[in-house]
C-alpha cells in the first residue's frame, strides 16, 4: 500500500558510505555454502539484509560480500540453522565501527 511512497531502488551503498569500517581483508566473517539452486532462505537474504550484502550472481547463486555488514545477525537467524551460511564475528577491532550507534 505504501510501496509507492518509497522509490524501489534505494541506494544502500550511499548510506553505507557514511559508516566507518575496518575490513579484515581476506577474512570474510560470513560465508555462503556452495549451492546450485539457492534455498528460499538464501533468496530472502537478498531482500532482508539491511546492508544488501547478499546478491544473486549471473548464474543464479546467492553470493555474500560482507564488507558493508553492520553485524546485526539477521541473516544468521534466517539461514544459519539449516547450514546455508556460516557466521562468526569479525576479529576483535575489525568490522563496523559505529560513531553514534
Amino acid at each position, binding site marked *: *500500500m505504501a510501496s509507492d*511512497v*518509497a522509490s524501489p531502488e534505494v541506494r544502500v551503498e550511499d548510506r553505507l558510505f*557514511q559508516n566507518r569500517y575496518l575490513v579484515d581483508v581476506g577474512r570474510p566473517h560470513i560465508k555462503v555454502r556452495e549451492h546450485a539452486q539457492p534455498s528460499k532462505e538464501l533468496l530472502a537474504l537478498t531482500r532482508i539484509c*539491511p546492508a544488501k550484502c547478499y546478491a544473486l550472481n549471473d548464474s543464479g547463486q546467492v553470493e555474500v560480500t560482507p564488507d558493508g555488514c553492520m*553485524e546485526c545477525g*539477521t541473516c544468521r537467524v*534466517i539461514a544459519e540453522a539449516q547450514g546455508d551460511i556460516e557466521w562468526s564475528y569479525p576479529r*576483535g577491532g575489525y568490522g*563496523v565501527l559505529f560513531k553514534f550507534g
Partner: protein
Amino acid sequence: MIDETFDAIVVGAGPAGNACAYTMASRGLKVLQLERGEYPGSKNVQGAILYADALEKVIPDFREDAPLERHVIEQRMWMMNDRSVSGMQYRSDDFNEERPNRYTIIRAQFDKWFSKRVQAAGALVICETTVTELVRNTQTGRVIGVRTDRAGGFIKADVVVLAEGVNGLLGERAGLRTPHKANHLALAVKEMHFLPRDTLEARFNLQGDEGVVIEAAGTITRGMTGTAFVYTNKESLSVGIGCLISDFKETGETPYGLLEGFRKHPAVAPLLAESDVKEYAAHMIPEGGYNAIPQLYGDGWLVVGDAGQFVNAVHREGSNLAMTTGRIAGEVIHQIKARRDPLDAENLSLYAQKLEKSFVMKDLKKYRNLPRALHNKHLFTTYPNLISQALQTWFRVDGVEKKQKENEIVKSFFRTRKFTGLASDVWSIARGWR
C-alpha cells in the same frame, strides 16, 4: 595471554555488561571485561532513550559527567496511514525537573563514558578482543573461563557473565540456550540526521535541553508488526524503523525501503528537511517477551541484557532492563563470593529469584501474551486507515449532518472488519494487556 584467575569475566561492554562489571568491581571483585569493538559502544546500536532510574541504581551521580543529549518532556504516539497521522501527545513542564526521568542519548558516546566509570571502579577492560568460546570442565560441564581470538590459552574465572547482546554466539554455541526465533526478534534500521541546533529546536518546539520522542505505528510497516521512531538529540535526530524478522522474511519487504517510506511520509519529511545524514545502522531487538526468556544461569555462568531477551516491547524498554539485570547479577555474584560459596547453578539461582521479585519479570510476565496479539496485520493497516477516515469524516465541514457522519463511521468499522473480527482484536489485546 592472561595468566591469572578472575572472580568474574564479563563478555560485552553494553549497558548490561557495564552495569554488571561496575557493580562487581566497585564491591572489590577482580573483574575482567572483554569487548570486541574498537571501543565500548562501537558495535552497539539503540534509539536511544535512557531511563534514569535504572542507571541511578548503579551510578547515582551519573548526571555529573554522562554524555546526555536531551531530557524528554514530550511524547508523541502516532498512528499513521499513508497520508495522515492521528495520535496522542503528552507534554509536561513537570518533566523539566532537577533529576529528569528520561534522556535521549547517543550510544557510542554513552557506552564509552560508562566504560570509563567501570574502569575507574577497578575492572580490567580489554577491547578489540572477540571471545570465541566458553571453556568448560570436561567432566562436570561447568564453565571455567573463555578463549579469545588473541594469542594464548584460555582465561580462567569463577563465573562468566554473558552480556553478549541479542546476537550472542557464545551461549548458543555452548548449548546454554537455543537460538532466538525469527518471530521473537525485530530487525531495526536507523539513521542519524544532523541539523543546526536552533533549527531542530524550532521544529520541535523545544528550549534548552528539552527533548521530544515520537513513536509511530501504522501503514509505514506495510502490514508487518513493527514501529518507527524519531528522537531528538542535541544536534541530531535519530530516525528508525523496525519489524519482526519473520514478517520481513514472509513479505520480502526491505528494511531500507521501509525507512525511505517513513522518511518521506508527509508528516515526517518536514522534520528531516535539509538534514545531513552521518550514519546508517542496523541492529536486532529481542521482542519475544516473557515466553522467549531462556535459561538464565548455570554452573559458572549467567546471562544478562538482550542475550536473555530482556526487552519490554510494549513500553520500548530495553537498556534499563539490561542495566537492571546486569546490576542484580553483579550483586548476586558478590553476595555468593562474600560468603565464599561456589558460583554453581544452585547458588546462582538466586539471580532468577531476585529477577522474579523485581519489575523486570513482573512487567514481562504482565505482557506475556501481547506479542502474539500484536502480530495482527489489521492493527498496522486496517485500523490506521479506518481511524484516519473516521477523523477526516468528523473534522471535515461539508454540510453533511452529524448524525449521518456518526453512522458512516460506525458502519465503516463493521463493514471492514465485521463484528467477529472487531471483537477478536479487542479481546486478544485486552487479554494480552491484563
